């Protein structure tokens, strides 16, 4: 990502040559450097792509068996739709020439991209950005799981990947007003996670809670996910993918930053895993696996903004705090505001995304409060997060509002009880018996 001008300048200083000079004839040190950066960026992007498998597993594992086909379809279609929407529309808004600090204006369907220079071949840069874009939308699917109409969700995805995410992305990484202010969101605690999480907040509250989540008496009920192994595989795949998400956001393999970013990412995830496990153990008497898995993600989300700006020790502290904060956030949404979020997406991505962004103001080696940098950076970080979250909320409100009016967001109660797999897709996720000449299908 272009991140901000400074990073961009740095990259350009390193590269010093137009990316077109890609080993046309004999390899040179310069062409090799471009090749290294390209290879690195692509491989990182492949890992980010695999995060979609991670999201799919997490969301399927943490919801009920009767809605598994539906949640898988949502995640799977998000990749496909997100990429195509970003190709035709999103990329241009995000990385086209800046208009008033707010939006980009070219590069739609990769047309008119001559003169765009990202230090690596345009297609490599585009590829990385495209797989990134879809992760933002997919966050929403988890929070709205088990009761949202499939068609409504798909349309929402089109808008997020075409408009919401690209505009905020432009502000932060595309040369827009936040990047000019020096806002630091290295790999997207705000741009991806908080935007996804706050969109999810709006979506989950507009679609309403699942039947049975809140008893008429106000009692809060738990609705356990159907497969912890699926959820755990998902978290491990996400963590793996995060090593593409964060270190890959350098768009450069020739900077030693890739190593220190990998280290902060690993440490923050580990620290958050430990703190959420211990905290759930103390608070609920037993170490809770579902909160521990969420805790890991919380730490990863939180370090994403500052992964290149903080020290390893800073990463550990941010991780430790995020793991605990997430548990409070889950309780808060579940029991106080009563917004039903089956997988904890709002807390993990929205709250910890914001938290991580603001923590950069404290922990940035360069300019953070704890390093004697005063409060300027902290202010900018807070502003950047607040503005992005607000915009995401407004956009989600408008998009879901229109969809609700036009087609409704919520499936019928009967469909919800029977499961969205039957209702929306006419098939179940698991088939237990099937034997004999005349095929037997038992609905057990």
């Amino acid at each position, binding site marked *: 990502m272009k991140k901000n001008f400074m990073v961009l300048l740095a990259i350009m200083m390193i590269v010093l040559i137009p990316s077109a000079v890609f080993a046309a004839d004999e390899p040179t040190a310069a062409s090799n450097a471009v090749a290294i950066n390209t290879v690195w960026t692509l491989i990182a992007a492949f890992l980010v792509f695999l995060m979609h498998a991670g999201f799919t597993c997490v969301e399927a594992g943490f919801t009920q068996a009767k809605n598994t086909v539906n949640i898988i379809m949502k995640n799977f279609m998000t990749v496909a739709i997100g990429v195509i929407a970003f190709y035709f529309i999103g990329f241009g808004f995000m990385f086209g020439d800046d208009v008033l600090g707010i939006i980009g204006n070219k590069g739609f369907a990769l047309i008119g991209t001559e003169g765009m220079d990202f230090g690596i071949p345009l297609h490599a840069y585009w590829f990385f950005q495209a797989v990134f874009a879809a992760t933002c939308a997919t966050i929403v699917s988890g929070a709205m799981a088990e009761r949202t109409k499939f068609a409504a969700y798909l349309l929402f995805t089109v808008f997020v990947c075409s408009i919401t995410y690209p505009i905020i992305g432009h502000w932060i990484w595309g040369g827009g007003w936040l990047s000019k202010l020096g806002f630091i969101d290295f790999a997207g605690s705000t741009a991806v996670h908080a935007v996804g999480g706050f969109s999810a907040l709006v979506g989950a509250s507009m679609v309403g809670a699942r039947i049975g989540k809140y008893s008429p008496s106000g009692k809060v009920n738990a609705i356990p996910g159907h497969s912890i192994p699926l959820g755990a595989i998902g978290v491990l795949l996400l963590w793996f993918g995060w090593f593409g998400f964060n270190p890959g956001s350098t768009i450069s393999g020739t900077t030693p930053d890739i190593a220190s970013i990998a280290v902060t990412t690993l440490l923050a995830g580990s620290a958050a895993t430990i703190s959420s496990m211990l905290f759930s153990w103390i608070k609920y008497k037993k170490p809770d696996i579902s909160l521990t898995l969420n805790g890991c993600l919380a730490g990863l989300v939180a370090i994403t903004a500052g992964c290149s700006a903080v020290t390893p020790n800073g990463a550990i502290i941010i991780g430790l705090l995020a793991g605990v904060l997430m548990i409070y956030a889950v309780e808060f949404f579940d029991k106080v505001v009563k917004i039903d979020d089956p997988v904890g997406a709002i807390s993990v991505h929205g709250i910890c995304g914001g938290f991580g962004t603001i923590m950069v103001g404290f922990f940035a080696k360069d300019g953070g409060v704890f390093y004697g940098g005063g409060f300027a950076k902290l202010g900018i970080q807070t502003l950047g997060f607040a503005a992005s979250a607000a915009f995401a909320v407004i956009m989600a409100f408008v998009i879901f509002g229109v969809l609700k009016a036009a087609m409704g967001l919520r499936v019928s109660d009967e469909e919800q*009880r029977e499961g969205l797999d*039957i209702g929306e897709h*006419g*098939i179940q996720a698991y088939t237990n018996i099937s034997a004999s000449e005349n*095929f037997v*299908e*038992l*609905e*057990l």
Partner: protein
Amino acid sequence: MKKLEIIIRPEKLEEVKELVNSKGVFGMTVSMVSGCGLQKGRKEIYRGTEININLLPKIKVEMVVKDGAVEDLIEGIVKVTKTGQIGDGKIFIYNVEDAIKIRTGERGDSAL
């Protein structure tokens, strides 16, 4: 002693449990079954080919109770499980010759 064998919609189990508790009956055995009756299932399509799903998921609740408790329970159960749509289920009543509580070896009504 009689056994009530109650076939209900899965989503009604919780209400049956509450009702039964409120009537002072403590023991029951629950299993997942599939059933068909007037409710004839549905058609699904898998990779372009139709499948008839004619067995739908139901819950079977078995409860052995004293003779005197039967009518009251039936009434209560019908009340909480009835939706009026086909597929609501049935209650079947059987005679039980004897019961043994394994823990104590007690038999007859006192084993329940």
